[in-house]
């Protein structure tokens, strides 16, 4: 007990509270305080009295300093939220807030409009591209449609020949000049129409300076019925010039465009009724 009293008498506890001790002394005091409740109580007494003394000596700092200090504390801690000022100041600040709010509203609204405009533009461009595609597809389809319509018309004509009972079919036979040649001719005296079936045509392909020419022999005289070509894919029926009467039909090879009278030594096929 005596030691403790003497220890307190040295005044070390007061210096400890004032922070005016070496690190070793500091540790020593803390150890003593932990060990002896009396010293701890004495320390608390000294601390309390110094605190009260400071309160007696208190000087109110300038009001503006509060915000400055508190803001700098938070800024130093990387906290960007700001302190609210004293109540009446906060109210004064509130007035300016709506203006700032509406400002930013228009800013955002403008940005949104701009974004919308850009998006619409992009959409328009892509739609325009698709529209062009559609147009070209329609054009292709129309062409195809026309083609099919033409083919149907043509096939109608072919079918007409086959279904019309007034047509007579004549198979022309190869001559001595071309024994393997052959061609089927359909002729309707009533309608004065002549068709040839290119599918049945058996002749060598003609070159670009020559064409085959069909003749009708009417009372022993040859009558021109038009020219035709033999190509690899020729498979249709072809309508020739019309004639009302014919004794026989013949085909000769003639210069391109046909001749006025047949070249007899180039006769390919002939057939008589």
């Amino acid at each position, binding site marked *: 007990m005596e030691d403790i009293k003497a220890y307190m008498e040295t005044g070390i506890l007061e210096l400890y509270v004032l922070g005016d001790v070496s690190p070793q002394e500091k540790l020593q005091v803390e150890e003593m305080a932990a060990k002896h409740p009396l010293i701890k109580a004495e320390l608390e007494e000294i601390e*309390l009295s110094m605190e009260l003394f400071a309160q007696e000596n208190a000087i*109110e700092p300038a009001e503006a300093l509060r915000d400055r200090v508190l803001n700098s504390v938070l800024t130093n801690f990387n906290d960007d939220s700001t*302190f609210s000022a004293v109540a009446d100041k906060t109210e004064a600040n509130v007035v300016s807030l709506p203006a700032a709010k509406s400002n930013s509203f228009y800013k955002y609204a403008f940005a949104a409009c701009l974004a919308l405009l850009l998006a619409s533009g992009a959409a328009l461009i892509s739609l325009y591209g698709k529209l062009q595609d559609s147009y070209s597809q329609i054009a292709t389809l129309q062409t195809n449609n026309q083609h099919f319509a033409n083919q149907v018309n043509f096939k109608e004509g072919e079918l007409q020949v086959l279904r019309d009972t007034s047509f007579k079919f004549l198979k022309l036979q190869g001559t001595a000049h071309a024994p393997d040649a052959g061609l089927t001719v359909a002729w309707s005296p009533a309608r004065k129409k002549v068709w040839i079936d290119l599918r049945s045509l058996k002749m060598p392909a003609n070159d670009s300076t020559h064409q085959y020419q069909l003749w009708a022999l009417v009372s022993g005289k040859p009558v021109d019925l038009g020219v035709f070509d033999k190509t690899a894919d020729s498979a249709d029926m072809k309508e020739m010039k019309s004639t009302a009467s014919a004794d026989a039909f013949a085909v000769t090879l003639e210069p391109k465009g046909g001749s006025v009278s047949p070249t007899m030594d180039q006769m390919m096929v002939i057939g008589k009724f």
Partner: protein
Amino acid sequence: MVLALRNREKIAIEALYDMYSSSLYGVISRIIIDTTTSEDVLQETFVKIWHSFSSYSTEKGRLFTWMINIARNLAIDKLRSKDFKNQNKNQELENNVTSIDEQRNTIYKPELLGIKDLVETLKPEQKSILDLVYFKGYTHVEAAEELGIPLGTIKTRLRMAIQQLRKHFN
């Protein structure tokens, strides 16, 4: 409060400021005469309190003791720093009379009039030692040199002065 400060709650540092800023500022502004510098030191004090709060524990004593020592140390560092000394040296000649007066004079500041009675209850030698150590930022060793008194006497006087204060507050 200590718990809230540990949890870094904004409201805690606000409350801390409202409770203690005037006490801390009272000490700081007696160590440093210049108002702007005192305000800077008060700001630094709260930044440091906030920053190094983890090093405070209730075991070691009252929160205020810990804070006031931070404030006093910062104020004394500032007072002794080169910048501050140069700043004082560079003051114009005609102002020196008043500023020297101000630096020497802590008791006659108008804010201090209220506590004059309290300090009057102390004996003159107790008052001068408390003045030097508490308000001028002297260590007790420096105070012994300044007053030409042995260290032991300084410690005893300081103890007596503080006991006088305790009696006054009780």
